[in-house]
Structure formats: structure tokens, C-alpha cells
């Protein structure tokens, strides 16, 4: 079992947060599911109807892994989103984004 993946999975379970970071690590659905099943088999978590909680042994393992894998350097866990970088513009320029690149739809106005 990859220790970094195990750390990330335990972190997500502990905080009940999104598993996207594991996806960014390149893991597929079945790999993440199997990882979680292994964590259950290792008795690292307690499963209730409403939530998953780290067991005592799970939390101990998490603390050990955290020493190695926790990102404390800001530049490691805040990465610039290259897609949104634009060329530096002059003080009096106005930036108009390309409407095709917007993440929302613009209402079409009918000219009278």
C-alpha cells in the first residue's frame, strides 16, 4: 500500500472532505475504493450510518504518516492555476474575457 495514498485517504476520512486529491494523484475509482476497503480491513476506521470516523489505531497511523507527508510549505499546497493566468496589462487597459471561456452563460440580448 502506497503510504502517501494511505495518508491522504486517512486525512480525507478524518476531515470528511473531498477525495479529489487522490484523483489528482492519478488513482482510478477502483483503486480508491480498494484503498478504503483495505483501511476498513486494517480496522483504521469506524463506519456508522451517518459518518466514517478514524479509529484509535487509524488515528495513530495517521499521526505517524502526517510527520512525513503533511504539506507545511505554503507553496506546496497552494498551486497557481495556470489556466487563469493572463498577460500583465497596463493600468488604463480594460480586460474583457472571451465569452467562450466563461464558466457561466451570458443571456443573448436582442438588438432592437
Amino acid at each position, binding site marked *: 500500500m502506497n503510504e502517501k495514498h494511505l495518508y491522504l*485517504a486517512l486525512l*480525507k*476520512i478524518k476531515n*470528511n*472532505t*473531498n*477525495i*479529489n486529491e487522490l*484523483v489528482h494523484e492519478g488513482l*482510478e*475509482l*477502483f483503486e*480508491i*475504493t480498494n484503498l*478504503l*476497503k483495505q483501511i476498513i480491513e486494517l480496522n483504521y476506521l469506524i*463506519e456508522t450510518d451517518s*459518518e*466514517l470516523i478514524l479509529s484509535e489505531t487509524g488515528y495513530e497511523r495517521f499521526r505517524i504518516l502526517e510527520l512525513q507527508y503533511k504539506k507545511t510549505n505554503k507553496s506546496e499546497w497552494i498551486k497557481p492555476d495556470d489556466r487563469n493566468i493572463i498577460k500583465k496589462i497596463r493600468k488604463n487597459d480594460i480586460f474583457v474575457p472571451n465569452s467562450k471561456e466563461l464558466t457561466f*452563460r451570458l443571456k443573448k440580448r436582442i438588438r432592437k
Partner: protein
Amino acid sequence: MTPKQLLELDKIITKKEWTDNPLHTSVNNKLFKLLNRLDNDEVTLILELLHKFTWISNSQYDKKILDVFRKIDPNIIKSCKKLYFFPIVKPRDSKKLKSGLSIIYPIVGILNYIEEFDHVKTRNIISNFQELKKITLKEDEYLILVDDFIGSGKTFEDCYNQIQQYSIPNEKIIICTLAIQEDGLELIQKHGFSVYYSHIEKKGISNNYAGDEIIRRISRMTLIEKKLKYNPRYSLGFERSEGLISMIKTPNNTFPVFWHEYLEGDEIIKAPFPRY
């Protein structure tokens, strides 16, 4: 999607025995991709609906066809010598290959194995309205209208309005479908027909929750539809049917989140149960 939600998805897939279906890997991966686009509350809604979702795969069709035809009134079968089959299609779609026509062939094949039908001539497939117009049914002959799925019943109504103009009496018409939605069933029964089916569908949200619970879920679903930029014509499924079913081809009555493609950047991503 949280780890809890991912384990929930895995439990649903296992409980529904989708892993027995050779197509399940594609469905699972696409479900995963889709759920990763949604926030946790939206994922909760989709998981709730997946619990109620029915996937009738190609390999289950034989069993469903047997189930439907074994339900037909035995008195009709005993008195019958010849059956005609016609797909439930709109007159303007008569020349297209629709699911109604493609399912007639396996039906006719399977009927050969049902002993109660041994005395019935079943090889009479009519594929268009012009042919149907020429038919005059004798005392011991029936017309079976067939589709794999009946949603709102609008297609049936269009088909029936056309057939009404021919010399085929209503009591000679039998309707068979593998699956049907409650709204469609009510509409057809209003016309006085007997409908034989294997699976019946309720509206996924409106018939399963009450009061504010419905409003909350419907508005969440419409937000998902806007976020993924689906064609608004299919909001909550065609005719707002709120369907939770997929067959060889997913009906457009099903919530579009399960079948409508969406964009990820410039790339078109196929849904878990695509129609095209």
C-alpha cells in the same frame, strides 16, 4: 465526493449486482467522473436516486419478455390463432429504427419457447402504418403493440390516434412493454386498454418524497442540470418524467444527469448511461 460517499457508491453497485454486467466498468468509471464534478450535497442526491435506479441490461431482456407474455390473459391466448406485432411509434417516426421495432424480433423468437403460444402464429411483424392500414383482424386474431419502455404515454397516444383511423377495434389491441411509468400506464388505461409489463416506474423524486423534501431535491437537480449545461428540454427527463431507468438505450424520460453528455473544458464527456 467524500470517502463515505465513495463507499456508498460501491455498496449500491454491489447490491444491485451491476458488476455482473459486462458493461459495468464503463458505467462505474463514468459515474465516478460525473460525481467528481458535483459538490457533496449534489452527490448525496445522486446516490439517493441511484438506490432507486433500475438498469435492465441486454441479458435481462429474455427474462423480462417471458414475464410480460406470461401475464397476458390466458383466455385471450386460448382463443387466439394469430398475432400481429406492431411497434409503438409516432406516425412521423414510422420509418426510423425505434426500440419498439427492434424488440419485436426477440419477442417473436422467445414466444416460440412459451408452450401456451404453441398454437399461435406469431411471425407477423408489421413495421409501418401503411401495412397496418391494410390489416383486417379476424375473430381469433389480435394486434400486439410493443415497446421496451413507455414513459409519459405521449408516443402511445400519437400511435393510437393513427391506428384509430383504421379498421382495428380496440378490444383486439394488446399493449406489451418491458417497463412503464405510472403516468403512461394511467393514460393508456384511460383509453380502456390492458397493458402488460414487467417493471413499473414511479417519478424518481415527486413520488418518493413529500412536501419540502421534493422541492429541495428538485431544485438541487435543476441546479445540477444548469451547472452541466444540459439541454433544458430534458429538464428532469422528457415531459418532466423523473425516470430512473436505463435499458439497452436509456429513455430520455430518465433524469438527464444519468444520460446527458457534458463538457469538461473543451472535451465532451459521456454520461454513465448514455443514449448516443
